[in-house]
């Protein structure tokens, strides 16, 4: 049986506040945790298959051109080599999130430096790697004219948001800010490199892969290979991090599949770390102009945010830098304009919190500059500019904890109220300062299905092709089911990451928990109805707790009610009008304290507080961990992370983890997280929003503002490396 709901109106019932188990929201340990800490959780490359061959991708050092010949014969003479795959179906780019169709083909048409063009398959990894290194590939190169610099080409304009007259508001403003910022490109750099192990039985393909969104990935892979979706099964029970880089399929999955189909043997392909950097998604670099016009009290009369981003020719995705600028702050005169430059760097796509991860921090720096001009406490300035309704669309907010997060965050952090004056505290060589920023991230929900079975022994089974990429899906889906069915988490088994199970939303855009959680919730509503029917009572009179059905003064074990027969439901959740009728988003606030070295310009984050409101908290432990993760990314975003491209030949110069600097242990101090519970009835039937990305949306701005407060250096370029801080350091 199946329970379907398209959410066209807010769900104010808050069913999960009336249930009795009390397991939802609890900070429970991850059920799969013991496997992960003992090294027994099995990731894509680790599935065992007899006579598995090893494939290594061959990439070319050319920014644009066409492969004219590949010397297969020489490669096949090398020890252990069994095939060179350069099929026309081999893809040359990563698929964008939720594409559901083949990414760019054929791979032999080269569009960026480091694009894979072939796959060498051998009996051992060492043999395949050696042969791949020696494979001779001839290319008709056409790179001299290929644009490489996003600032040197004419850009395509996206449809702007325009209200009133911003230019006029700027001239009339008592206080105004007009500042231009840059952010460098970012890499997801998930710890598990992209990997796939494919098996073909002549009819159907099974691929163990490291992917975030299986129902879309299945369609992408089938389309790439000219197979029917039904012929493709994807299995991804554990994913070693994604952060957007595994939203769509990449070359290793297609390559492994083509080789397995040609050779009739299992084939494993794992990208090298360098290949992951060179060929998978990058977050586009951005140039952003922020204009703020305000009256004498610091209230915004105008708000402008314009951004230039880049992507390859033919790619629709444009880093949605302005996403939260649409609704975070007021100002009647508005201009938001995004433009895309077409250049030959690897595909730009989603990296954790696309848009807000670089768009909020620049606005937050501009707000800090405005607070200084208006002589206001930066927290107070933000509180004054929280709009009553969506500033451009005249619709209400579904729920919003921004003011509470600013106030409670400030209190927890020990924020010193009042206008800021830089260089107030020095400890030896170090200037000490603090900064604030708001957090905002759009909310999304995606169609999702999940099957829940109540088994005769009274335990439950949850099944969906949804993934757990470290987000806590195993825990939270088990907790939603346990809460609805009156079971402890130990009595709920959650199976994920297999396209043989009902299609979930996939992990992306912070929508996994609310979307798939809602599908599980709906299935459980159906199961509760069935139990009530079996008992001959109204579902509204039924309570379920610790394996018992309770109504009036009666009590009966669920196992007895089931009487030896399992019952199952498929929950089918679909987004509807409720998320269109309201401005639905997650909000928060960041506070950071930094030390900046007067002589070297080095910045150390000393402590950080984040306060976040994102609807119902499904598991306070995993939710907090998501916030910690986001805040850790803020530190990298603010201080160290930058993709560096060679301006002459377009290659990525820092394509490994030694040269692309993600935060390490010593970069990350103790972090404090406050979770502000709320119920958002418009967001989802379980009143939950997303939290996977919110912790990254604005926090780098708090660090930037703290740098200014500490030493007086207002830096307009991210990351704020020592050279940039030093250059902006005031003389006196």
């Amino acid at each position, binding site marked *: 049986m199946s329970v379907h709901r398209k959410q066209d109106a807010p769900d104010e019932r808050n069913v999960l506040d009336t249930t009795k188990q009390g397991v939802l929201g609890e900070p429970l340990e991850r059920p799969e945790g*013991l496997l*992960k800490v*003992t090294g*027994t959780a099995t990731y894509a490359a680790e599935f065992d298959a007899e006579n598995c061959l090893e494939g290594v991708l061959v990439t070319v050092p050319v920014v644009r051109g066409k492969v004219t010949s590949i010397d297969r014969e020489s490669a096949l003479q090398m020890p252990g080599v069994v095939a060179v795959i350069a099929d026309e179906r081999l893809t040359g780019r990563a698929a964008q999130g939720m594409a559901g169709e083949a990414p760019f083909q054929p791979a032999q048409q080269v569009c960026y430096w480091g694009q894979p063009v072939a796959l060498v398959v051998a009996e051992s990894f060492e043999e395949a790697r050696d042969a791949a290194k020696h494979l001779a590939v001839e290319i008709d190169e056409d790179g001299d004219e290929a644009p490489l610099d996003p600032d040197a080409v004419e850009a395509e304009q996206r449809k702007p948001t325009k209200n009133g007259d911003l230019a006029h508001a700027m001239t009339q403003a008592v206080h105004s800010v007009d500042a231009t910022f840059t952010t460098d490109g970012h890499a997801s750099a998930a710890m598990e490199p992209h990997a796939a192990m494919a098996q073909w039985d002549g009819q159907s393909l099974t691929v163990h892969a490291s992917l975030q969104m299986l129902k879309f990935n299945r369609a992408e892979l089938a389309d790439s290979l000219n197979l029917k979706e039904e012929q493709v099964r994807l299995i991804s029970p554990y994913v070693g991090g*994604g952060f957007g880089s595994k939203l769509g399929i990449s070359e290793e999955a297609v390559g492994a599949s083509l080789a397995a189909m040609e050779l009739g043997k299992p084939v494993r392909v794992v990208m090298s770390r360098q290949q992951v950097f060179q060929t998978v998604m990058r977050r586009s670099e951005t140039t952003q102009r922020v204009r703020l016009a305000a009256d004498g009290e610091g209230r915004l009369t105008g708000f402008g945010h314009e951004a230039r981003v880049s992507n390859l020719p033919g790619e629709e995705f444009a880093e949605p830098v302005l996403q939260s600028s649409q609704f975070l702050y007021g100002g009647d005169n508005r201009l938001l304009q995004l433009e895309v430059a077409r250049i030959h760097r690897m595909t730009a796509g989603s990296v954790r919190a696309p848009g807000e991860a670089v768009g909020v921090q620049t606005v937050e720096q501009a707000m800090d500059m405005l607070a200084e001009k208006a002589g206001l406490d930066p927290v107070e300035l933000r509180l004054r500019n929280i709009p009553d309704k969506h500033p451009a669309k005249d619709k209400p907010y579904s729920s919003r904890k921004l003011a509470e997060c600013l106030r409670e965050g400030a209190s927890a952090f020990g924020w010193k109220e009042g206008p800021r004056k830089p260089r107030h505290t020095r400890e030896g060589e170090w200037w000490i300062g603090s900064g604030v920023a708001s957090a905002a991230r759009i909310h999304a929900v995606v169609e999702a299905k999940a099957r829940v079975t109540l088994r005769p022994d009274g335990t439950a089974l949850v099944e969906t092709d949804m993934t757990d990429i470290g987000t806590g899906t195993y825990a939270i889906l088990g907790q939603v089911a346990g809460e609805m069915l009156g079971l402890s988490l130990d009595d709920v088994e959650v199976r994920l990451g297999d396209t043989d199970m009902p299609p979930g939303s996939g992990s992306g855009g912070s929508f996994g928990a609310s979307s798939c959680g809602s599908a599980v919730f709906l299935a459980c509503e159906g199961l509760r109805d069935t139990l009530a029917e079996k008992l001959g009572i109204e579902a509204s009179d039924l309570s379920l707790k610790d394996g018992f059905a309770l109504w009036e003064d009666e009590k009966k074990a669920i196992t007895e009610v089931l009487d030896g027969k399992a019952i199952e439901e498929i929950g089918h959740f679909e987004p509807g009008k409720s998320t269109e009728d309201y401005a639905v988003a997650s909000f928060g606030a960041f506070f950071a304290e930094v030390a900046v070295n007067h002589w070297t310009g080095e910045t150390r984050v000393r402590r950080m507080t984040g306060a976040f409101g994102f609807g119902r908290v499904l598991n306070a432990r995993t939710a907090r961990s998501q916030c910690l993760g986001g805040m850790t990314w803020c530190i990298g975003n603010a201080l160290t992370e930058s993709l560096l491209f060679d301006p002459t030949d377009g290659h990525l110069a820092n394509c490994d983890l*030694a040269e692309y600097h993600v935060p390490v242990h010593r970069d990350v101090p103790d972090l404090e997280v406050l979770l502000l519970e709320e119920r958002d009835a418009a967001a989802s039937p379980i009143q939950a929003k997303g939290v996977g990305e919110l912790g990254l949306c604005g926090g780098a701005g708090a660090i930037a503002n703290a740098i200014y407060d500490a030493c007086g250096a207002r830096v307009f370029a991210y990351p704020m490396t020592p050279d940039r801080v030093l250059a902006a350091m005031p003389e006196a």
Partner: protein
Amino acid sequence: MPITINDTPHDLPDDPRVSLLDFLRSHAGLTGTKKGCDHGQCGACTVLVNGVRINSCLSLAVTHDGDEVTTIEGLGSPVSPSEMQMAFLRHDGFQCGYCTPGQICSATAMLKEIAAGWPSDATEDLEASPQLTGEEIRERMSGNLCRCGAYANIVAAIRDVAGESA
């Protein structure tokens, strides 16, 4: 002499190009040790060789003739996890779980290094015994990257274990 992995002897590979990491994963079937970069930059492949932590990707298997290797599987199992493994679970010191075996192997060996008096960049006084401060732990664990950003919880887990044994 063969190589001993988690108390079990194994014959070394014929191909001298096989790294210790690939030997563990592909030849010995011990996939708990992870490959994150294959260049000694991320620490996901950390194992103990004769009790000392190393990046197994930077070492060729054939050079470990007679060595005793301990991997994450050797530290504990789901039935009988080690103290450090339990602390990581308790403190949510991981998310995706991919860097986790390396973090745990590294942390296990790192505490012994502090106990043995090995100094680090964070050690204030090189003459005195290093103290178990947060800064010492962070410095000594900085070779183990975690992209999910679980550092704060990892440090809490390590402190928990260090506190119990202190």
